[in-house]
Structures are given as C-alpha cells and as structure tokens.
C-alpha cells in the first residue's frame, strides 16, 4: 500500500485533475495527428490551460499565505493548510 502511495504522490501529486487533464489533452493530440492535423501547437496551449485551471482552483480555496494579514477579512476563517509537501516537488 505504501508503495502505491509513494508512486501516486510522486507522479500525480496534490491535484489529480492535472493528471486527468493532461491525459485528455494527450488523447486529443493523438486524435489530431491521426486525422492528419498538426498537433504541435495544441499541447503547449492545453498544458497552459490545465495549469492555470489548477492554480485558479488552489488559490480560490487556499489562503496559505505566510502573512495572514494579506488574507481578505471574509476569507480568514476559511483558511486551511495546503497539507504537507508532496514528494519530489
């Protein structure tokens, strides 16, 4: 069990949606190539979109800032830790 936990943390990390988004993007890139459409432009844009969506989500729900005074008053009560550091990052 700890073995699988290690590899899950190592590869997937904190946000499984990133891994899922990348899997879908790779599928679309493969479909584009199979259809004879150049796919090189698609993946960088898809990666940027997946990353930004994940960052947006994290910053919406997490206010783990070192200086608590920077949190908006309405959000201070909702502050939660983002948890321990993931393996390898």
């Amino acid at each position: 069990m700890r073995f699988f936990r290690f590899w899950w943390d190592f590869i997937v990390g904190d946000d499984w949606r990133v891994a899922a988004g990348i899997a879908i993007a790779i599928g679309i890139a493969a479909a584009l190539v199979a259809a004879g459409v150049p796919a090189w432009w698609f993946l960088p844009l898809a990666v940027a979109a997946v990353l930004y969506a994940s960052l947006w989500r994290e910053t919406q729900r997490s206010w783990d800032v070192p200086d608590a005074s920077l949190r908006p008053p309405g959000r201070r009560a909702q502050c939660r830790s983002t948890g321990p550091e993931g393996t390898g990052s």
Partner: protein
Amino acid sequence: MSAVFLVLSAFLASAVEMVEALTIVLAVGVTRDWRSALIGVGAATLALGAVVAALGPALTLVPIDALRLVVGALLLVFGLQWLRKAILRASGYKALHDEDEAYARELAEARAAGREERAGLDWYAFTLSFKGVFLEGLEVAFIVLTFGSAQGSIPLAAAGAGGALVLVGAVGVAVRAPLSRVPENTLKFAVGIMLTSFGIFWTIEGVGGHWPGDDAALPVVIVFVAATSALFVSLLRRRKLALA
C-alpha cells in the same frame, strides 16, 4: 542543443532530490550517530544500484515512440506538479519551503527517538538515513533513466545527476548544515519548466507528431513554458493584492 538541456535538466532535478536526502542524513548524523547514518547511505546506494541495473536494460527494449509517449506524459504531470507549487510559492499563496525548518524538525524527531542497537548500529539512524537516500535516490534514478532513454543517452543524463551529486555533496561537507543557501524555489521553478517542456516535446513525438524545425523547437517550448509561468505568477500576485 538538446544534449545541453538533457544534462541541465537531469542536473537540476537531481540536485533538488539530493538536497532533501542530504538534509535528512545531516540531521541524523549530527544528533545520533555518523557511522550508522553513513552505513545507511552506503546500503541505500547499493540497493539503488541493484534497482537501476534491473530496470535500465528493460527500458532499452521498448520502442522509442512508445517510450517517448509514456515518458513525455509522466514528465508532463510530474513537471506540472513542480511548476504548480513553484508558482504558488512565487506568488505568495504557499509558504516557501524552508530547509532550516525541515532540518530542525528532523533534529527534534531524531533526538526524541529511543536508542535501539542492532548489529552494532544505531537502528534509527541507519533506517532513517537509508529511507531518505533510497527514496530520494529512486527519484533521481527515475529521472536519469527516463530522460536518458527517451533522448537516447543515459550516460549524458547520468553525467548531469553525477554533477549534482558532486556539487551537493561538496556543499554538504563544507557547510555541514541544511542547504538553506540554495535558492530552493528558483531551482524548483527551473526544474518544473524543464520537465514540462521535455514532456510536451516528447509527447508530441510519441503520438506521431512532428515539431517545426525538429530539435530546434525545444528551446522555443522552454521559452513558452517559462514565459507562461512568469505570466501566471504575475496574474496571481495581482489577484492576491486586489483581494487583500
């Protein structure tokens, strides 16, 4: 051109993992027993050597396009983890990882643990040191094998990791303290950019696509990923200030 990026990526990624392993070994060595800690390092290195010797040749039997697709996809999700955290730290949403704090925590845990001797070794020092070096070393081995196999040169990737080992080891011996002088988030930002860029590049080749200009496209991808990440840091910083 891509050989330079290969060595640099393997160097940076390995250096980050080695700093983490070194922090554990230093904390255990200082508080418990240097002999047991160093024997733990040696045993972990031997175990790692066995794992790499078993996995390395198997990777060379896989067709190159399939390997690039699997490695590219892995590097993409792996690289995005690093990049995501580095951007959150750089924009102030996540505390900077503090090696001093990690070192102090390891010290406190090591001092609190009872002493148990097995085979003449302080078992706590041995196992903690072994675990730290083996797990971080496994990550380094994974980086070297995947980078090296996909680019067709494991020795070049190993050279990058070897350079990191020499540098981190020398710094560790010189300071004998946590390596808090290493600008960790900058290093992680760079690693995230390199892993993500290689991931994008190899995944497209793995699904049968082609880059305009072939290998010359890689630096362009790196610039794109770096610029996009810098833009995200700037956007998140502005957003945080606007909400504050």
